[in-house]
């Protein structure tokens, strides 16, 4: 059984998509349990796979028994083992939380929603698990196409935002495909490990450099790296809660994974950092991304949209960390993939609960929320604190590695950007907390013992439990940072990178 984990991760959600779409016709109530069961199998397999990788090292799984480079092979090493576990757990928790909000937002589309949901997870998991560059493109498009559908389901400005996302997403994927084409011309192979073996003799070739740059631009568009970010805020804001809390934590992070895979595996760090002398400008670009993300977030008066701009800043963190060109920075970037996925999930789930109850995420809607939804807000505080970067939540430790990397690389601009963004996050989140805490002001200032608090009106248990689990994970991952880095990330980065 455990030998088949790599296949199960992709095949189970894929087949369940079929089953769910049929179940949607027969009886809508079956959709949710099937989804959860399929994702639970995927999560179980990917966690099991991670432990197997920890024991045995890299696992190669040949689909259909065909040998690479002819057949498609799944490679699972420490890097994607970690990302797989995070993606599948996030997808599972969010699926559980989505039940009530889907029933409220579009009860007639439960079947299609969960079909798209599991297909998207299939795509994301496939991107991470595959060892074939072209296969990655196909899965990329599966994840993207289902994503457009999930976003457009929300109605309102959803379809228009999804269409704009579709234009950009398609360009991004096409760029990636073009880059892979150049690589194929040069190496005659599509298998990542195979390409990596052939490339070193061709490092000086203009075509290889072009391939690298084109691929990079493609994934940057997909991950909304500033200034290629314009599609993201609207798409994520106007998506229904359950979709945005799947897409926001995962899509950008998986694309960061693809970028790191390109840097570390297909092209070696030697090529990416030394032969192509572009690290410095890219880190500066990410500094700009962080600043702009933070500043644009400040002007938003909608909680969800504000969070989307924070995601843009966070993308800057990871791109910058990966391109610092040293081991510590890369560690920070990889760690932040996991941490940021979890904390983004935490805040988006909290927003989902708020939207479920107060029907909006404009700042005016948030008044008195600490009284009304104390549990949701408690978890939201933990997510916010992690985003700010306060120990012992995990956000602090990835920031620790990123800043350490910046100091070791002598790139103080990046350090300042990270600190600036932390401080802006304090302002952003406490501005929200202030509204939830103080407003509406009671008539009698000073000793408000005569205020009439609104009664507590919490989100349903199925939405609260996943939220609490994520909040707890944020702290636990923070405390176990040492183990994660020493046992997983340490092996995910090639020895050559110091």
């Amino acid at each position, binding site marked *: 059984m455990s030998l088949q984990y790599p296949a199960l991760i992709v095949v189970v959600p894929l087949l369940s998509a079929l089953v769910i779409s049929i179940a949607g016709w027969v009886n809508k109530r079956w959709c949710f349990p099937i989804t959860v069961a399929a994702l639970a199998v995927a999560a179980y397999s990917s966690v099991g796979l991670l432990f197997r990788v920890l024991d045995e090292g890299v696992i190669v799984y040949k689909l259909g028994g065909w040998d690479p480079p002819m057949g498609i092979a799944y490679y699972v090493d420490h890097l994607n083992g970690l990302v797989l576990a995070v993606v599948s757990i996030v997808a599972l928790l969010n699926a559980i939380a989505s039940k009530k909000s889907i029933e409220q937002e579009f009860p007639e589309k439960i079947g299609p929603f969960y079909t798209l949901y599991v297909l998207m997870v299939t795509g994301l998991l496939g991107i991470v698990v595959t060892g074939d560059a072209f296969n990655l493109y196909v899965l990329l498009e599966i994840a993207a196409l289902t994503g457009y559908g999930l976003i457009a389901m929300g109605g309102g400005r959803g379809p228009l935002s999804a269409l704009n996302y579709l234009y950009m997403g398609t360009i991004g994927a096409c760029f990636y495909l073009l880059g892979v084409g150049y690589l194929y011309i040069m190496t005659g192979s599509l298998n990542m490990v195979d390409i990596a073996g052939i490339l070193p003799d061709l490092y000086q070739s203009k075509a290889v450099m072009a391939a690298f740059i084109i691929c990079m631009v493609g994934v940057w568009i997909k991950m909304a790296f500033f200034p290629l970010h314009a599609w993201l805020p609207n798409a994520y804001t106007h998506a229904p809660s359950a979709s945005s809390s799947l897409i926001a934590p995962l899509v950008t992070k998986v694309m960061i994974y693809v970028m790191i895979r390109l840097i570390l595996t297909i092209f070696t760090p030697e090529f990416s950092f030394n032969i192509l002398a572009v690290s410095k400008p890219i880190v500066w670009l990410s500094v700009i991304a962080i600043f702009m993300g933070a500043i644009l977030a400040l002007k938003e008066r909608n909680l969800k949209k504000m969070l989307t701009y924070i995601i843009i800043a966070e993308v800057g963190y990871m791109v910058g960390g990966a391109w610092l060109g040293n081991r510590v920075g890369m560690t920070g970037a990889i760690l932040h993939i996991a941490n940021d996925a979890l904390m983004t999930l935490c805040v988006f789930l909290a927003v989902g609960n708020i939207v479920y109850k107060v029907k909006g995420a404009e700042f005016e809607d948030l008044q008195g929320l600490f009284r009304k939804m104390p549990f949701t807000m408690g978890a939201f505080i933990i997510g916010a604190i992690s985003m700010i*970067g306060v120990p012992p939540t995990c956000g602090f430790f990835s920031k*620790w590695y990123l800043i350490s990397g910046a100091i070791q690389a002598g790139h103080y601009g990046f350090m300042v950007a990270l600190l600036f963004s932390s*401080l802006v996050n*304090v302002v952003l989140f*406490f501005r929200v907390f*202030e509204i939830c805490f103080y407003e509406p002001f009671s008539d009698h200032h000073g*000793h408000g013992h005569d205020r009439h608090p609104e009664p507590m009106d919490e989100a349903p248990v199925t939405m609260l439990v996943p939220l609490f689990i994520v909040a707890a994970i944020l702290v636990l991952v923070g*405390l176990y*940072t*040492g183990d994660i880095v020493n046992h997983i990330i340490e092996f995910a980065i090639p020895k050559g990178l110091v």
Partner: protein
Amino acid sequence: METIISIKPLLAVLVSLLITPILASSRAPNVREAWTFVAAVAKVLIIASMVPAVLKGAEIVYTVAQVVPGVAIKFRVDALGMLFALVSSSLWIVTSAYSIGYMRALKEHSQTRYFVFFALALSATVGVAFSANLLTLYLFYEMLSFATYPLVTHHQDPEARRSGRKYLLYIVGTSIGIVLPAMLICYNMTGTLEFSMQGIFAGTEPKATMVVLLLMLVLGFAKAAIMPLHSWLPAAMVAPTPVSALLHAVAVVKVGAFSVLRVLTGVFGINLLTNLHLGTVVCYIAAFTVITASLIALTQDGLKRRLAFSTIGQLSYIVLGVALLSPKGMIGGMTHIAMHAFGKITLFFCAGAIFVATGKKNISEMVGIGKRMPVTMIAFFIGSLSVIGLPPTGGFFSKWYLVLGTLQADQMPMLLVLLGSSLLNAAYFLPVVYKAFFCTSEESMFQNTIQEAPIWCVAPLVVTAVGSIVLFFYPTLFLNLAKLAIGG
């Protein structure tokens, strides 16, 4: 030195953290407050049980998690940490009693929230006291910042929001903007953040770097309220008085001062500071704060604001004493944590009791109040004696050692600063007491009938006032701990 591995430090931190769900879910106020007392007493007992070992010179360590290479989330109980933990945890019991009296008398809203965050804040305070390295200290320092925010802004009115913003801006702004990068630079230079007598630096680093790092770490811990990063403290006085009492006379501000002490003695180390003559730099910054804060205090009419500025000055005594780098000065600085805590908390309790009983906040409205609230005002008198540093109060000892320290370090300007500031202390406290008791009946704003605040308010301030006097006769425990802390 003997090292004992024990889970007790972790328990001491967790006991008030784990009580918070019970506090939050208890419906009856009496049950809630009973649990607060249980936690407070348990905390003191756990901490006290470690005292004998510490007095024997042992260290109690417990590692929670190895988070980054070379740095763990780790507790280490040494003499200095024990001194601070003892003071803050024992005063928590008293403050809890006082809180009950104050909050119920004023029918404050959201009392449950208040007690929950109070317990959280105490966890963080003891965590800071027992931290074994800068990272752990930073963790609890930040936890304290966020846990005290809802306490400071308890009234939830526009004024509270303004003060809350200022509080966050100063406290969190400096800790993320200044301390965090300084800590990371130290870590990348040395690979460790563990406090030790010798400091973490090799001593070969360029002096300019050292000066910058020192200033970043001393000023960055803005809870120590060293000028120019002090103005959050008067603003935070919008909080209910028990909060001001425990947090802004004992826990929060002392956490700041304590962090600065740790930076001076544990991160840089006395030897390095002496060799590079960096102590003097800190001395002058602290001395400036002492004098300026005392002068500003003279001009304040709001009693709590006057106490706030007095606190700013007194905190810098602690920093000043240690920055003298002479053994006596350091003992003075460290014991001042305890002595000032007892004195200042008494004063805050009195201010709160006056507010509860009469609704008055300004000193100009308190003429003749001694006739109406004699017990409170006598306690106020004792508290001010302790803060000024006169016998028979504990404050005398710390001042005495500070003065000896300046002589030992041969720092005449600092001696003058100490003496001048003591005069200023007397000038801003004693007139309050004088006007309270000695005024003609025409001047008096109160009737002669005795009408004190509720017993829950008065009893705690009597306890702390008596405590101040007791510390004069039995200062040995704190003196011994301070002596141990500087290495025997």
